[in-house]
């Protein structure tokens, strides 16, 4: 069994299943913070999917996209936490 086939039929469906479970939490999350942390983990798993995809297609260029996605995920979580803090301050 080739390593490419192993990544294509073994690793990638499990990562897709993980994204699916996280998307259920993203839909039913009781508070906004639950959704934000689910989205953060979804983007992190997305980085893993991009890396596995670049291994499958033997295209190392996709790693740049994974790096940019990591940056954007951190900025998004940061700004969402700032927004939640401002909202908690205004509520009381």
């Amino acid at each position, binding site marked *: 069994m080739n390593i490419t086939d192993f990544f294509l039929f073994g690793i990638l469906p499990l990562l897709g299943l993980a994204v699916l479970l996280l998307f259920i939490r993203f839909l039913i999350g009781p508070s906004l913070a639950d959704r934000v*942390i*689910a989205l953060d983990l979804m983007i992190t798993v997305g980085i893993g999917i991009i890396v596995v995809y670049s291994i499958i297609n033997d295209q190392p260029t996709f790693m740049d996209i994974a790096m940019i996605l990591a940056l954007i995920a951190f900025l998004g979580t940061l700004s969402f936490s700032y927004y939640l803090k401002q909202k908690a301050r205004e509520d009381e």
Partner: protein
Amino acid sequence: MSDFIIALLSTLGTLFILLAALGMLRMPDFYLRVSVATKGGSLGVGLILIAAAIYFSDFGMTTRALAILFFILITAPVSAHLLGRVAYLSKIELWEKTSRDDLRGKYEREKLELKGKIRETDEDEEESSENEPS
């Protein structure tokens, strides 16, 4: 041999990511979910990135993979800490079986960030909170 190491590392990483996703779905509390997401997610993606760094035995690609790994390992605890702190400040419920809460009452008493969040205090604390600039 190299293929075996790559397969082992990526399988371990995928299992950690799957466990993190399952924990996100099953954990009863926001704080437990943050804990599971940070540890499991960063460890799993880190193992997959190490596998990619071994697979692309090129200096540029290995450096790039390790840079992503370094960045994830730096930023995941920071974002988890920020979200957990904000969730505690905005009074998201803890699990009812939580055994200890070290922060109980401390944010109100010491007024770390929150000026208007004081609920049940006596008068001098309210006065000093009014003097504090927002």
